[in-house]
Structures are given as structure tokens and as C-alpha cells.
């Protein structure tokens, strides 16, 4: 059994940067990645704002050195790039030198291609190569291939907006139990008409910049992103004398069991997830220095999550902020990009501002951190809450 779950590498592409350093610069300079949509031709383009990644698919293909007959969805392209960054950052030269697995996550998978070629498949041979990418595990298979992971544990989690947090959780448990020595964990989701229209039917898309935890919040901005982290066991760390970026210290998943899409008014699931994570970390609420909230800026989420935070932390709510105003809500990838942001916060002793906030919510008196703040951080708690009542919390720490 490995005691610690060390993070030794990270990679991320999002609307605020194509790598970890660019993401960090945007975070500390309050640079939002939210704009009108440019890459998808949707009738909603004037009604919504999104967090879009600048690179086109062909630019991403070139970056990966793929031939033109590849059948990568945008999700797979983004995921492969972020995962490769993470492995490089962890200075891994031989991926199969230790028992290495990949736990990826996605909610849309190859839906961008499905919706493009849906009827075309039936007539046109050239688009049929994408049929293999119909199932959600396809992007993970491709990422594993790009990383050179063979004959090993590769799987995919899809629990809506908590997916990547759950991938990190499973990875941590596999390291702790000794099933794997090393595991690449994270998630990827691209923007597509499917999610744009889906969230539109739920009437929770904002027509302007999203404003987490603001009284007058109008809903979320969708975003696209991918992020991966390399988790390694104590054995690998000591044998390879590796530098550790941070540790996965606690984790918890619970179900709200309240409604198919909405969170319960008092945040039962989120409360349970945070409590479980604290217990696994062997921490009390007082040990948490910063909360990176899920904070999607929907009426329902921010109220429910805020109340859950109050239930867990009572009178001692630590500094908290949501980074969704920067990136948009990147669905399955959100838990992974925010894990990267949590580790960066620990490394730099920085709390990111909760952008676009103007008016205090009337239901409670907790206010997110509004300015960039320097503070010695030992621990960061990160929430990811999704459809199907799926609630996840991760705790990252500087020390084992």
C-alpha cells in the first residue's frame, strides 16, 4: 500500500492557455477566455458566450503529428495534447517502466463528429472512419496510444460535470491500493452543438460573462478544455527521486439523490462529498486554506454549493472562488483543469479572484475572494458537482 499519492506532472489546454504556464499567467492577470463562439456554426451564436480554445482541429492534428486520415474527435485531440504535456512535465521517458494506467473522462466524447456526420455516415464512406469514435472510451484509447500505454488498465469515467474529479479519485485509490505505480488521470471535453443546445433547453446558459456567486447571475458559459495529471506512488518517488508538485490528500463522492439535473436546495450531496474528503485526508474543516468552488454561476448550483460550504465550514469558511469566469464550464474536464489550478495555487501561494462579481447573494453572507491574494497555502479543496446528483470533492496538499 502506498501512503501518498504524489502529483508529478500536469498538462492543460483551455480557453485561457495552451499549457500550464499560460493558464497560470491568465489566472493571475484576470484574463478571461470567454468570447462569442467562432468555431461552431450555431443559431445561438449571438445569444451565448463560450470558453473556446483558439487552435483549430487541423492545428491540433499537426501538433500531434497525425496523418490526415486520422479519426480523432476534438475531444481526443485536446486530451492527447494535455496528457502528453503532463507526461513530459513528469519527466517520464519510459511510460511502461512502472505499472502505468490511464483514467480519462469525458461527457461528449466524439459527439462533435457524430453531430457533423450524423446523416452523412449513411452515404459517405469518407466520414465513416469516425463511427469507431462513437463510444466515449474512444478518446481514452487514443490518448493511451499517444502516451504509449499498452496492455494496461485504461478506462473512462462519465459522470457529467464531476467526471474528471472522479478520474483523479479513482487514480488515487489505484495508487493507494498498490494496483498501479503510476496513473495518468484527467478529462477532456470539446464544445459541440449537442451541449450548447442541451444546456440551452435547460435555460441555464448566460448571454453574457458568467458571474459565479453573484446575486444576479444569469447562468453558465460552456467551455472546452482538457487537463491531465500524473499520479505516482511512494515507490516511484523514492526510486526515481522525483520532484513532487503536490499530493492528492483527500477525496469523496456522494449522490444528491434529489433530481435528475438540479442540486438539492441545501446541497446534501456536496456536503457529504466534502465531509468524506476531509475524513479521507484526516483533516478537519479548519485545515482547508482555500476552496476552488464548482461555482458554475447557475442560480441553482451556486446557492446549493454555497449552503453546502456553510454546512461543512460553519463560521470558518476559508477563502473561496470559482474559476469558471475564466474558462467557462468545461463539463467533464472541469475537475481536472481545476485540479491543475489548485496545484498551481499551492505552488505559488496564490488565491485566484472570483471574476465578474458585483452583488452579494441574499441567501447567505459568504462572499468569494474578489482580488488576487497571496497567502501561504497548505491545502486546497476543489468541488465538482454534476447532473445525476453526482458530487465530488478533492483535497490537494503541499505536504504528504
Amino acid at each position, binding site marked *: 500500500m502506498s501512503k501518498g499519492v504524489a502529483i508529478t506532472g500536469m498538462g492543460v489546454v483551455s480557453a485561457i492557455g495552451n499549457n500550464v504556464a499560460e493558464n497560470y499567467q491568465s489566472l493571475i492577470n484576470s484574463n478571461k477566455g470567454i468570447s462569442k463562439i467562432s468555431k461552431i456554426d450555431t443559431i445561438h451564436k449571438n445569444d451565448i458566450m463560450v470558453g473556446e480554445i483558439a487552435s483549430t482541429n487541423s492545428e491540433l492534428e499537426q501538433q500531434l503529428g497525425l496523418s490526415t486520415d486520422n479519426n480523432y474527435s476534438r475531444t481526443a485531440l485536446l486530451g492527447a495534447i494535455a496528457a502528453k504535456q503532463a507526461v513530459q512535465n513528469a519527466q517520464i521517458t519510459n511510460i511502461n517502466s512502472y505499472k502505468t494506467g490511464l483514467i480519462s473522462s469525458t461527457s461528449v466524447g466524439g459527439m462533435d463528429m457524430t453531430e457533423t456526420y450524423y446523416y452523412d455516415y449513411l452515404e459517405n464512406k469518407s466520414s465513416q472512419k469516425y463511427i469507431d469514435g462513437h463510444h466515449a472510451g474512444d478518446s481514452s484509447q487514443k490518448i493511451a496510444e499517444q502516451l504509449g500505454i499498452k496492455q494496461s488498465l485504461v478506462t473512462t469515467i462519465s459522470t457529467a460535470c464531476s467526471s474528471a474529479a472522479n478520474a483523479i479519485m479513482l487514480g488515487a485509490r489505484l495508487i493507494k491500493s498498490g494496483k498501479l505505480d503510476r496513473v495518468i488521470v484527467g478529462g477532456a471535453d470539446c464544445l459541440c452543438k449537442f451541449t450548447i443546445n442541451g444546456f440551452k*433547453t*435547460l*435555460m441555464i446558459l448566460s448571454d453574457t460573462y458568467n458571474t459565479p456567486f453573484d446575486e444576479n447571475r444569469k447562468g453558465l458559459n460552456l467551455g472546452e478544455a482538457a487537463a491531465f495529471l500524473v499520479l505516482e506512488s511512494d515507490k516511484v518517488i523514492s526510486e526515481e527521486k522525483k520532484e513532487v508538485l503536490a499530493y492528492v490528500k483527500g477525496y469523496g463522492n456522494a449522490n444528491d439523490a434529489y*433530481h*435528475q*439535473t*438540479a442540486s438539492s436546495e441545501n446541497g446534501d450531496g456536496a456536503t457529504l462529498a466534502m465531509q468524506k474528503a476531509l475524513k479521507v485526508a484526516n483533516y478537519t474543516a479548519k485545515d482547508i486554506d482555500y476552496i476552488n468552488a464548482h461555482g458554475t454561476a447557475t442560480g441553482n448550483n451556486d446557492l446549493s454549493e454555497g449552503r453546502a460550504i456553510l454546512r461543512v465550514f460553519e463560521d470558518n469558511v476559508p477563502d473561496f472562488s470559482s474559476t469558471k469566469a475564466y474558462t467557462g464550464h468545461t463539463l467533464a474536464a472541469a475537475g481536472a483543469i481545476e485540479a491543475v489550478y489548485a496545484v498551481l495555487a499551492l505552488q505559488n501561494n496564490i488565491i485566484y479572484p472570483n471574476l465578474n462579481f458585483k452583488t452579494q447573494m441574499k441567501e447567505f453572507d459568504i462572499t468569494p475572494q474578489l482580488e488576487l491574494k497571496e497567502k501561504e497555502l497548505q491545502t486546497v479543496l476543489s468541488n465538482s458537482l454534476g447532473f445525476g446528483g453526482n458530487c465530488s470533492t478533492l483535497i490537494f496538499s503541499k505536504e504528504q
Partner: protein
Amino acid sequence: MEVLKQELKENIIEQLNLEDITVEDIADNDILFGDGLGLDSIDALELIVMLDKNYGIKLTDPKEGREIFGSIEIMAKYITEHRTK
């Protein structure tokens, strides 16, 4: 108005897949949500689309729906006053 009410009942049963309910089971003043017919927030979103598609009424805030969908009577009145098709 009576024709509209009948039409609304039929559409609600079909759109919301209320298999075990017939038009006769829904009285004009029955409460549709919660303890009444048992509709919920997802049904409200479905009904908002129905207003748009069938009567050209666009609601932007789901909260508006809560009052309008109080009963068949209230709905029919609202539609009569606001329909554009």
C-alpha cells in the same frame, strides 16, 4: 377557449408522456405541478418549448412559467392574450 383547453390537455398528455392519464382526468382548474398532476421543473421546460412552438410565445425566464402553468384555465387565458400564432 374550450377548444384551446382541450388542445392543451391533449398536448400536455402527449408531450409529457402521461401514459395513464386521459383528457377527462384533467379538470380546468386542477393544479398541474407538485401535488396536483405531479409535473416538475423539467416538465415546465417542456411546456415552455410548447408555448414557443405552438403559440409563438417566448419565455426567457423559467420562473415565469411557474405562474402561467398553474392550471389549464390559467394557461389558456395567458395563451389567448399573448399568442402570436
